[in-house]
C-alpha cells in the first residue's frame, strides 16, 4: 500500500531512487541537490537500502564511478546541479554515447557567472545536446514517479539512453508537498530487476569503445538519434503502464491543460506550470480562452505533440527559465518555433524569460505574459518579454 507523506522534492528523488533498488550510487554534494545524496547515504548506512555508496571527490568522478558500475552491469543513480553538471560534462556526454542506461536527478540551478546558487534551468538546458533524455517535473509527486518511470524507460532495449529527471532547485527541491510513496512491493511489481548484460566481464571478453573510425561513428550517432525518436513512443507506453499500476498519468511527453477551444497558450515547463494552471483558470473565468501546454520532455523534443497541442491557437508565449545566447530568446521558445514549422505562420508568438537565478515566476508575470499575448494584433514574432518586477 502507498503511504502518504509531506516531502521535499529532493526527498522524493532519493526515495524514488531507493525504490528502484540501485546497485550503486556515487555523488558529490552541491546546492540545491545535496540532500538527495544525504538521504540515500542515510538509507544505505542504516541498512535500509542494500546498495553501494561511493563518496567521490568531484562530480566528474561521480559520473565516472557510475559509468564504471553500469559498464560492469549495475543499475546506478546520481544527482547534481549547475557547476557539478558542468564539471561532469565529459563523462556525462560519454554515458549517453556509450548507451549505458541510468537515471540522474538534476535539481536545476542557474549557471555562474554572476555567482549564484539559486534556481534556473540553464544547467540542464546547456547540456541538452549531450544525448540524454531529459524530463522536467512540476510537482514532488512527479519527481518520485519519474525516477521510477525513468529506469523503465532507460533500460528499454529500444531506448538505452540515460535519463535526467530535472526539477527546479529550491522551488521543488526544498519545498514540501503531499506525496504518495509506493510500497517496495508495488515498485518491484512495476520495475523488473536490472537484466542487461555487463559490457565489461571476463566471461564475455570484449573491448568497450575501441578506437572507432568515422564511418562507424556515424552509424552509432544515427542509431542514437533513432533511439531518441523511438523513445517518444516508449515514454507514452511507460506513462500508460505507470497509470495502470499507480493510477497517475502525466500525459507522456506533453500535457495540455484546458487547451480545448483555446485561442492562446502559454508553453512552459517545470514548477512554473503550477502558477500557469492557476492563471489559466483565472483568465478562463474572465472569458479569455487561454490554455497551458506543459513540456514534460525536452529531449527527445516532442515536436509532433507540441505542434498538435498548438494547432488551434492564434498566439502562444513560451516561458523559459533559461536563455539561448544568440537567439535573444529562451531555448524552448526557439525549439517550439522549430517544431511548428510552417504552422507557425499566422500565429502571434514571443519568448518570455523569467525566474533566473532564483527569481520568482509569479502569477503577475504570467498574467502580464497572457494579456500581452491577447493584445497582439498581428501574427509573427513579438519582442522577448523579460519577466522582471
Amino acid at each position: 500500500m502507498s503511504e502518504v507523506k509531506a516531502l521535499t522534492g529532493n526527498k522524493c528523488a532519493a526515495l524514488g531512487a531507493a525504490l528502484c533498488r540501485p546497485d550503486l550510487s556515487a555523488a558529490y554534494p552541491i546546492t540545491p541537490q545535496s540532500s538527495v545524496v544525504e538521504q540515500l547515504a542515510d538509507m544505505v548506512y542504516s541498512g535500509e537500502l542494500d546498495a553501494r555508496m561511493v563518496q567521490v571527490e568531484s562530480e566528474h568522478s561521480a559520473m565516472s564511478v557510475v559509468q564504471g558500475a553500469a559498464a560492469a552491469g549495475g543499475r546506478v543513480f546520481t544527482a547534481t546541479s549547475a557547476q557539478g553538471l558542468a564539471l561532469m560534462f565529459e563523462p556525462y556526454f560519454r554515458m549517453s554515447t556509450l548507451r549505458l542506461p541510468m537515471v540522474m536527478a538534476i535539481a536545476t540551478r542557474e549557471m555562474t557567472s554572476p555567482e549564484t546558487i539559486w534556481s534556473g534551468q540553464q544547467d540542464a538546458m546547456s547540456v541538452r545536446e549531450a544525448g540524454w533524455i531529459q524530463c522536467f517535473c512540476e510537482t514532488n509527486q512527479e519527481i518520485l514517479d519519474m525516477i521510477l518511470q525513468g529506469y523503465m524507460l532507460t533500460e528499454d532495449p529500444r531506448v538505452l539512453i540515460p535519463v535526467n529527471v530535472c526539477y527546479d532547485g529550491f522551488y521543488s527541491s526544498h519545498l514540501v508537498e503531499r506525496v504518495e510513496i509506493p510500497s517496495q512491493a508495488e515498485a518491484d511489481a512495476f520495475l523488473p530487476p536490472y537484466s542487461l548484460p555487463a559490457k565489461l566481464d571476463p566471461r564475455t571478453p570484449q573491448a568497450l569503445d575501441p578506437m572507432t573510425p568515422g564511418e562507424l561513428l556515424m552509424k552509432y550517432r544515427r542509431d542514437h538519434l533513432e533511439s531518441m525518436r523511438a523513445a517518444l513512443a516508449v515514454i507514452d507506453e511507460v506513462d500508460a503502464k505507470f497509470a495502470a499500476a499507480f493510477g497517475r498519468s502525466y500525459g507522456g511527453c506533453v500535457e495540455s491543460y484546458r487547451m480545448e477551444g483555446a485561442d492562446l497558450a502559454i508553453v512552459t515547463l517545470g514548477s512554473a506550470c503550477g502558477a500557469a494552471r492557476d492563471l489559466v483558470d483565472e483568465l478562463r473565468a474572465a472569458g479569455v480562452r487561454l490554455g497551458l501546454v506543459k513540456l514534460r520532455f525536452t529531449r527527445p523534443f516532442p515536436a509532433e505533440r507540441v505542434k498538435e497541442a498548438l494547432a488551434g491557437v492564434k498566439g502562444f508565449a513560451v516561458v523559459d527559465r533559461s536563455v539561448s545566447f544568440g537567439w535573444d530568446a529562451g531555448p524552448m521558445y526557439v525549439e517550439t518555433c522549430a517544431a511548428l514549422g510552417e504552422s507557425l505562420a499566422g500565429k502571434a508568438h514571443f519568448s518570455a524569460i523569467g525566474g533566473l537565478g532564483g527569481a520568482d515566476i509569479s502569477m503577475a508575470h504570467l498574467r502580464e505574459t497572457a494579456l500581452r499575448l491577447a493584445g497582439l494584433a498581428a501574427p509573427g514574432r513579438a519582442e522577448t518579454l523579460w519577466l522582471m518586477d
Partner: protein
Amino acid sequence: MRHVTPLGNQGMYILDTAAWRVVRPVMDKNRCVNCGICLSLCPVGSIYAEGKQILISYDYCKGCGLCAAECPKQAITMEAEVK
C-alpha cells in the same frame, strides 16, 4: 550491443610489425644458455620457450635489438634484413 567489440568478432588487432624490421636478431645456439633474459625483456613478446629451449619468432619482431644488447652471453647478433 553497441560500441563493443566482442572477442572474435573480427579477431585481434594485429599489425604486421615484422615489416618494420631492418635488422633481425639471430641467436647463436652454441653460445645461448637458455637463461631467458631476452624473453623477459622483449617488448613485443617475440621470444618464446619450447621446453628448455629459448627461440626467436620473426612473426612480429620489430628488430629493436634489445635482446642482443641485453644477452649476457652475447649470443644474439643483429643482422641486416634481406627481403
